[in-house]
Each structure stands twice: as C-alpha cells, then as structure tokens.
C-alpha cells in the first residue's frame, strides 16, 4: 500500500481520524493540518480528497511518501 501525506489549511482535531480511514491527523505548521498514512488505492485517495473538499478545507498539497518501517 502507498503512503500519503495530505496537507490542508485549518486545524482539524485528531478525533477526525476515524472519518478519514484512520489516517493520523496532526497539526502542521502555520495553522495547517497534515493527514498521514496508508491509502489502499487511487479510488480511496480520491474518496479522502472528496471528504476533505466537502468539509470546506482548502487543499494545500498531496504527496506520496515512504511508508514508515
């Protein structure tokens, strides 16, 4: 499975993790939030992005990263 890091503008509480397929939800720099974790496939990724869009959170970046060992 690929790992992704998605950054949005605004601060989301870690409690939202369940809503986003158990990705970790952590504060990022400058009032942003970073969601990080494994994503099953492209369809799952677009599903996550749609959910972020539907909350009105401006999307800043989507990056594929190394899975943690």
């Amino acid at each position, binding site marked *: 499975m690929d790992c992704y890091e998605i950054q949005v503008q605004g601060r989301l*509480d870690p*409690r939202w993790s*369940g*809503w986003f397929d158990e990705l970790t939800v952590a504060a990022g720099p400058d009032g942003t939030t970073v969601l990080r974790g494994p994503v099953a496939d492209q369809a799952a990724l677009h599903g996550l992005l749609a959910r972020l*869009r539907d*909350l*009105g959170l401006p999307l800043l970046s989507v990056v594929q990263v190394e899975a943690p060992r």
Partner: protein
Amino acid sequence: MPVTLVETKLFVPPARADLVARPRLDGLVSAGRTRLTLVSAPAGFGKTTLLTAWLAADAGRRTAWVSLDETDRDPEAFWTYLLTALDRAAPGTGAAGLALLGAGQPVETVLAAALNELSVLPDDVDLVLDDYHLAEGPETQPGMAFLLERLPPQVRLVLSTRADPALPLARLRARGELTEVRAADLRFTGEETTAYLSTATGMELDAGDVSALASRTEGWIASLQLAALSLRGRQDPSEFIAGFAGDDRYVVDYLVEEVLDRQPPELRDFLLATAILERLTGPLCDAVTQTSGSSRVLESLERRNLFVVPLDDQRRWYRYHHLFADVLRAHLLAERPEQVAGLHRRASDWYAAAGDPALGVRHALAGGHVERAAELAELAIPELARERREAVFRSWADELPDEVLRNRPVLGIGLVGALMSSNEFDDVERRLVDIERQLALPEPELIVMDAAELPRVPAAIEMYRSALALNSGDPAGAIVRAGRALELATEDDLLVPAAAPALSGLASWALGDLAAAHRSYSTAVAGLERAGRIADVLGCSLTLADLELALGRLGDAQRTLERALELSDRHRQGAATPLRGTADMLVALSRSAWHRDDLASSAELLRRADELGEPASLPQNPYRWRVAMARLRAAAGDLATALELLDEAERVYVGDYSPPVHPIPATRARVLVAAGDVAAATAWARQHHLAADDEPSYLREYEHVTLARVLLAQETAEAGAAALGLLERLLAAAEAGGRDGSVIEILALLAVAREDVEPLVRALSLAEPDGWIRVFLGAGPRLTPLLQELVRERPDWGHPRRVLEAATGAAASTPAPQSASTRLVDPLSERELDVLRLLAGDLDGPDIARHLVVSLNTVRTHTKHIYTKLDVNNRRSAVSRAHQLGLLTR
C-alpha cells in the same frame, strides 16, 4: 428497465422566508439568461438557498428540479430523473425521450427526441440540477455535453456543484453563454454579515465583534449560521466571539461542538444516532434511536433552524444539511464507534418492514451485516422481479460480497436475472456454474429463505443459458437449452413456461422457421397469461400476429389481436389509461384491416390508437403507426404524404428483439415504384446491396420481393428476366418455409413476370379463405388485365372480382379524410398549417423560423396555438394528430 422514482428528489424546494436580501447576487443571475448558469462552490456556501431564492423571484418560468445523489452516477437513473423533471415542468416534452430510454436506446437518440420537443416549446424552462458533482462521471458527462450543446434558447441549464463540471466552460465563457457564481461571490460581505447576524441572533452586536466573526469565518455562510446559533441567548456574546476568534480550530468543528454541547443530552444522542440516515422521517428515527416522538423533534429542529432541510411540503421527510451531517458522523465515529453497526441494523430493519428493500440492504451492508443483507435481498427479489423493477436489485450483484453468495443458490439466480435484464452477460456463466456447484451440495449446507424457490433453480439456469446462447448468435443452442428448461420446470413455476418458449420462438424466427416460432410463441403467450404478466402478453401477441401474417393466416392474426385487446381491457382494473401496448394492438388490427381492403376500419383503428396516445404505447408504436398511416395514404393515392410519413417513421424508429424483417427503406421503395419513380427505387436497391442473383434468405425476403417489384417496373427485357429468376427462387424458399403470406405476393408478381394467369389463380386460391386483397396490388397495373381475364373466364369466383375492384377503384374505396375545418372546432390558420408541416420534419425551432422568415418567438406562439387546437402538448403528438385528421395531405 423502469427506475422507481424517489419523489423527494424532484421536489422544488421553496425559498426560505428568513433570508437576508443579497441584491448583489440577484443582479448576477437575472441579468444572465445564459445557456448555462453555474453555481460552483464548496459545501455550505448557500448554493441551493441562492437558487431557490432566484426561482421564487422569477415566477412565470417553469422549473424542472432534480436533487441529485450518488445513485445518479448511473446514466439510466440520471436521465430518467432529468427527463421526468422536464416533463413535469413542461408536460409532453419528456415522454418520447423517456420511452426511448426505457427501450434501451443510446443517450443521443433519447436526448434528440427531447430536444426535438424543447426546440419548439412555447414556454421557457429552467432545468436545475442540484449537487451535480454527485452525478458527474464518465457515464453521464458525454450526454450532458451533447444536451448542453444543443439546448434551445427556451431552456436554461442551471448546475449547482462543489466541483467544476467537465463541460466546455472556457468556450461558453468566451461566447458569453455562461453565468458563474463562485465561492468568492457567495461569501458574505461585511455588510451582509452584519445584516445576517442581527436577524439570525436577534441581537445588536458590537461592530468589532461582527468584524472578528466575519474575519474568522471568512464569510462562509455555514459557519456564520453555526456562530449565530451559538450566540443566541448568550449573556456575553463578546466573550464567546473572542474565544472563538482566538481559537484556530476548524470552524465547523468548533461551532458544531458548541452547538451540540448546548443541546440537552437526549437531543445530542438523537442527532448523532440519526446522522447515519440519508433521509429522515419520524418513525424511522424512532426505530433507530429506540425512542418515540421523533416527528416532533424533527419539526422543532426545523423551526430552530438546526440544519434540517425539508424534502417535501408535508413535513414528513427531511435531511440534514450536508456539512452538519458530515461533522455529526465524524463525531459518531469518534465517540461511539461500537454503536454504528446497531444503528444501521435498526435502520435496515425499518426499511425492510416499510417495503423499501433497496435501502434495507444498503443499511445492512453499511453496518457490516452481510448475512442480513443477503437475507433481505433474497426475500425482496421475487416481488421486485414480478414488478419488473430489476433496476433496484441490479446493484446488489456488485455490492453483495462473493462469500455470502457461495451457498445461496436462490439469491444467486435472482441476481443473474437482474444482470440479464440489463443485458450484462459477461459475468453470468461464471455465476451459473457456481450455482450449479451449490445445487450439488447437501441441502443443509445451503441457505434458502423460501424453500419453494429452490426446486425452480435448475430450470432457471437452463433458461438463462438459452438467453445467453441466443445473444451470442447461437439460435440452435438456444432452442435446445429452452427445451431443457421446460423439461426441468416444476408444476408451479410461472416464469420458465413463459420465458423459455419465447426464447425458443425468437431463436426459431432468427433461423427462419416460422412454423416452429409460431408454436413456441403461442405457448409463451399462454404461459404469460397464466403468470399474470398481461403487459408481456400484449407484446408477445404482437409478435404472434406478425408471425401469423407471415404464415398467411390473416384470420388467426385478427383473432390473436382481438383476444389480446380483450384481455387488456379486462385487466385494466379501472385505471384511467389502458395498458401500455393497447395502442400497438389497434395499429396491428389496422394493418389487418388494410390487408382485407377494409380501409374505413383501418383508418378508424388508427384514429383510436392516436387518441390513446403515448401512455398506451410501446416504444415501437410511433414508427408502426406512421408506417400504417403511410399505407393508408398510399392506398388513397396520396403518395407524397406516404413518403413523408415513412421518413418520419425512420426518424422515430425503435427496434425490439424480433428480427427486423420489414425495413422501412424497402417499404419506401415500394411507394416509389407506385409513384412511378423507378430511378429512386433502383437507387434504393443499389444502396442496400440487393441484387437479383442474391441467395434468398428469410431475413431479406421482404427486401428481395421489393427488388422484384422494382425490376418489373423497369420494364426492360433484361430486368424482366432477372425478376423472373429471382421470383422463382423466392417462391421455392417461401414455400419451403411455409410462409404463405409471401407465397401469395410472389405468385402475383410471377403472374405479371410471366404474363400468365396460372400463378395468379394459385395465389387467389391461397388468399381467398382469409380475405387477402391488397397484397395483390403491389404487383402493379400489369396485374389488372390478368384479373380481368380471370373474371371473364370464371365469373362465379368472387375473389378475383374483389381484387379487381380494389385495383381499379382504389381511390374511390378510400374515405377521404374530412377536411380539417369540419373536424376541428377551432381550425388552424394557413400560417399555423405552415408551421405544422415543418413540425413534421426534423428541423429544430430556429431552423423552422429561418425557413418561414419569422422570429423564433413567432414560431413558438404558433406552436402554442397548434397544440391547443389539436388538444396535445407535444410536437410528436401534434404531428400524428395532424396526419390523423388529414391536415397534412396534399
């Protein structure tokens, strides 16, 4: 496959009374009467609110509204809703398109029919699609692009969406055909924020506080609404606002928590528990929350503006505002994940008991209760299948995991039925093999909801295999399998004894064995009647009558059709409209009357069919009616109108499962020959690659016989010889196939080709018992001397005289259609007749206007008057009524 409509999706939401006036935005939209109006912004920006406010302000335009959801990604659902909404807003515009859609026609054909109506629509219509992002996808987008490109000026398309659609926006912008409202436009300005907060909170807020709120929420109405809710009744608003402004948490999160925290615990529980529901109603919420009084709770939520949106005007169904619902669901997942499965289970049970198995299954699956979902599915399928609502359970074939299907053969075969009825054959054989594997297991290992269904499975497997064979071009295999299916059918099976013979009949027909096809279809019709599928009886009876005509049994065809018509009448059960297919019966009876040269009855039957209109018609009826009317006009000598009618027939042509053995171009060629235009008829033969030395085949028999007529009309020795050879081979083939109807016609032509009375005698003997007359007239004027000779030689024989009378007195025996002025209370003016003539063609509104050198508005006004005077509400019906009344004859 009809789609069952969820009425609430077509409900036009009323404008909310308590809105802040935003003249800045009103100006944007009323100025823009453009082809496309796009409101594109994320959730919670007030898109739907804005649209409903515009519509309320703009009375006099009809509104077609669809609130889309994810199920509308499926093109059949999407177009059904769109055309239904259009038809409700502008009655008559959607019916033709919906019929074509139901007949499985490609989307462009469907839309062309709708656009044909819309382009001359007297009124203006707004077509609003709310939440378009939910339906947009590769399956719906191409049709939308097509529709948008050809939209007439009367129709404005309005899309509200969270993501820009994949439509040519740049091009529309450049042409000034796009009005856009985006997030930046929808954000509340400082002034608007002040006005909103003061109305919503009922408080006078400090300017600094308002400014802090405006800045923190960035004019996003969803968060302003939540902020207003949180502020109401607070003693110290400034403290709250300072706390809010100083916090950097996601605004909705912060505010929803604020709102939730201020609710009594029972209400909070209610909100979280019901968050799993797409749509809410009192009893459903009671079941899910295991309380009572939910109806009152919902009404109170609406009164307090707590994010419920009514979905009808009886205050029975609601939904949560999307953003609010998302946050609630997230809270539910975070706080009470262990409750989610149970909530879905109770929702599933409620829907199952309420007679909505689709949502019952969906909730069961959402809650992870796959076994329960399978149970519900299996219980629901028999009735859904009986009501031909296969669209409802088609998706279960994808959604139910394989593991739950491994020991449920009855469910398995039900899902196969859904796939077959949507013509998706790829995965079927694999599933059938697996079901056979299951049937070999010891019975205790199987899960079957209704034990009576299990013995029916083996026959069903063979029946579906027969359909697969037929579909893959193996009619012989299909016949074998259908026979097996009948052998395996149980006493109480109602489906297989009807469907298997029908498949067999179709296969025999494709092989040209009409006698076998006839036997099979007769069995099928009896089986369908026993199964109570009366609408199917009508369709099959039409096929049976077609076969009987081909076999030369005009009398049998008459009886078949009359029986079916009587059956249809009996089963109407007092419904306002007769069953769909009744009009088709009348048209088929009209054809029989025409064959017997009873032109008065033929015309009367067509008139009755026209009066019954679209609701009583199968999708094929528009073209069949026009072909029948063309024959009547041709019999009256009005060949020009006959040709026009055939052109129209081709434009509205829809096929069905039966082999297309009477192609319209061949019928047109026959009229051309009668009109003396041999050159055009010869061109037809060339275009369709027909030659006198072709090998006769049943499927092209009609065309080959037509070719023989054309060759004889050419009146050269060479053509005559070619015709003779062709006719002799056609005769041998028709006799071998028992196709007496064709034999009569071919013999008449042979008599002309050989200038010999003997074949004519044979033909008349065959024709006499059932009264075939007009079939002889296609042999042309050269038959007349032969008939006269025969009448002289055999004065006691009645049939040749009858045919001779028909041949020579043709014009006299047709009742001329009464002139328009005697039939219409309010006759059409000359100008209106001009427009009507053009409505019969395929020009769109603007082209008609150009042709008449008037404005489109003038055309629309004329059209409106035409519709009123003819008592119709759409173009297609206006044209058939016009033909019916003889208004278009020359």
